[in-house]
């Protein structure tokens, strides 16, 4: 395919011949409103909002169904085309409740954006004449549908028919009785279902998990990587610090990365943000009692020096590569055996053909690359130092030091709190060998140290 120049709003752009005009407009952030088009779902041409003027064409054309051709001259603004959009938008609003103040989508609703842009806030439609549909339908998979807010863009239904091929959703009925629905008595039920909440351009689909928790304009979105499995899907962490409170994560959303996850993430990964804040280990515990850091570090040294014998260090395969490297060096220094067991245990029940990997450890590849062993020595262990490894094999050790992000039942002589991945930064290598950097997103009022911070403190203490 050849690259050609076309003119949009008196500016020249280079694009691939035969590619979709709307992709170019989106790429360069040339504002055209649209509901139904989505790069992952393709053109459906039903909303008629993406109208542009193309020189030589009598009528406005939809950009989502226009292929880029030589010598094309496009106009996306101007009185004429704005008028066209305003008209269609007004029709879109005819049967749509004007209830943004109580709508959960407010702030990330395209309908709201567009009619603010086109100055249509006061619509002259009499409420009583509107077609009424059902509100608050529990579709299943934690997704709630408000049919009155739906603009019938068919993104959600195309997701279940074309992407997951699970076919739970469809637009049924005809004309203005058409609505999104499941089969009577059936539920939305697939491991990726919650993506339709992100796909929905308006407030018709909301997540039970997120509904009314936060107004979106208060949220900050920061890029990150899901640690739910070795796929390493790219996500946004949406978080906010309310006055007098701690920084809180409200949700994970997919972040586009064509190399890894495309546009979507799985529901389990999406909901895994809860682990970052629920049931956290925040105190240092020495022999079952809270203690201060100085006390803890002293105890650490004592446990380390309490006698000879085998030292084993366990490292969670979800730690960042930089952290693993540091632990590896530390192990060498101590003459300890470093292991990350269970990396070879695959979770076939979780896996599927698409994103979800049977390898649940998000940095298993790094364990492999660093040559960290994945079984346990048979010898008697004198001291076990565990870096957040979900230790399910029973290990018989005389003394145990345990760094933990979340509370666990496993007893230990010394328990030290650890930052979760969103409170730390580092690199993950996904199952396909793609290295992805994960920045620090969350700073707690009273932060738990990261592995690296602990390593420095512990070693200072030792030396």
């Amino acid at each position, binding site marked *: 395919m050849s690259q050609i120049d076309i003119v949009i709003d008196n500016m020249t752009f280079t694009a691939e011949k035969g590619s979709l005009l709307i992709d170019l407009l989106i790429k360069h952030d040339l504002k055209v409103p649209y509901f139904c088009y989505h790069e992952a779902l393709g053109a459906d041409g039903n909303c008629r909002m993406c109208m542009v003027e193309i020189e030589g064409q009598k009528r406005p054309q939809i950009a989502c169904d226009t292929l880029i051709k030589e010598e094309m001259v496009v106009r996306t603004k101007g009185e004429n085309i704005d008028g066209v959009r305003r008209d269609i938008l007004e029709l879109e609003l005819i049967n749509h409740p004007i209830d943004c103040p109580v709508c959960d989508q407010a702030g990330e609703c395209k309908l709201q954006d567009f009619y603010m842009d086109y100055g249509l806030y006061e619509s002259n439609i009499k409420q009583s004449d509107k077609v009424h549909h059902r509100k608050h339908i529990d579709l299943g998979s934690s997704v709630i549908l408000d049919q009155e807010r739906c603009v019938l863009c068919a993104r959600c239904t195309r997701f279940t*028919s074309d992407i997951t091929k699970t076919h739970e959703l*469809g*637009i049924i009925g*005809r004309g203005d009785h058409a609505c999104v629905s499941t*089969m009577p*008595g059936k539920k939305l039920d697939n491991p990726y279902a919650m993506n339709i909440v992100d796909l929905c351009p308006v407030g018709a689909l909301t997540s039970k998990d997120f509904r009314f928790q936060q107004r979106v304009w208060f949220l900050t979105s920061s890029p990150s990587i899901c640690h739910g499995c070795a796929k390493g899907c790219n996500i946004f962490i949406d978080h906010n610090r309310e006055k007098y409170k701690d920084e809180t994560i409200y949700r994970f959303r997919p972040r586009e990365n064509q190399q890894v996850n495309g546009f979507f993430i799985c529901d389990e990964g999406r909901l895994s943000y809860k682990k970052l804040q629920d049931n956290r280990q925040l105190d240092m515990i020495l022999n079952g009692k809270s203690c201060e850091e100085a006390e803890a570090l002293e105890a650490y040294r004592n446990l380390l020096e309490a006698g000879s014998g085998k030292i084993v260090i366990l490292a969670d395969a979800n730690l960042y590569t930089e952290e693993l490297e540091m632990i590896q060096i530390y192990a060498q220094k101590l003459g300890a055996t470093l292991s990350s067991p269970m990396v070879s245990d695959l979770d076939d029940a979780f896996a599927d053909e698409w994103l979800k990997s049977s390898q649940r450890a998000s940095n298993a590849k790094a364990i492999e690359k660093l040559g960290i062993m994945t079984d346990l020595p048979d010898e008697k262990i004198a001291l076990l130092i565990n870096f957040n490894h979900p230790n399910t094999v029973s290990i018989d050790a005389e003394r145990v030091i345990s760094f933990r992000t979340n509370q666990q039942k496993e007893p230990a002589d010394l328990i030290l709190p650890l930052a979760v991945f969103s409170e730390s930064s580092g690199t993950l290598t996904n199952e396909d060998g793609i290295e992805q950097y994960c920045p620090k997103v969350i700073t707690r009022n009273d932060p738990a140290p990261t592995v690296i911070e602990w390593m420095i403190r512990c070693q200072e203490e030792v030396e």
Partner: protein
Amino acid sequence: MSFEFTKENLEKIEALKSRYPSPKALSLPCLWMAQYQERYISLEAIETIGDLIDLPPMEIYRVATFYTMFNLEPVGKYHIQLCKTLSCALCGKAEMLNHLKNRLGLSPGESSSDGAFTLTQVECLGSCGTAPVMQINDQYYENLTPEKIDIILDSLEEGS
């Protein structure tokens, strides 16, 4: 509850498959057969059809809700469908509707309690030259007058 096509219908479906490039084409024919078999289209029938022609039930359900002639709920033994579009309206449809309403004690959209009659108004039946027109089940009745309607209904009532 479950639904099964009669042997005869199954044979018809198999024969039809050879006539089309894809078995998916058979959703309308199958829905018709199901409707004739049960007088309406049940969700079970939709599932069965899906299996037969390799379409997800949802797609068939969407189809069934798109076309006005498919009934997803049982209708009366005689489904009276009076045309309400322009040519019929110009030629006395209102009078026919009144007559039907009085005679049957039904409003459009209602069924008689004995399940004998359902009255609906439909759009142009493609019989405008012989307006006013109604269709009862598969049969057209044209050039209607109140007297003619009485004769037709009398004979149906006798038959049922």
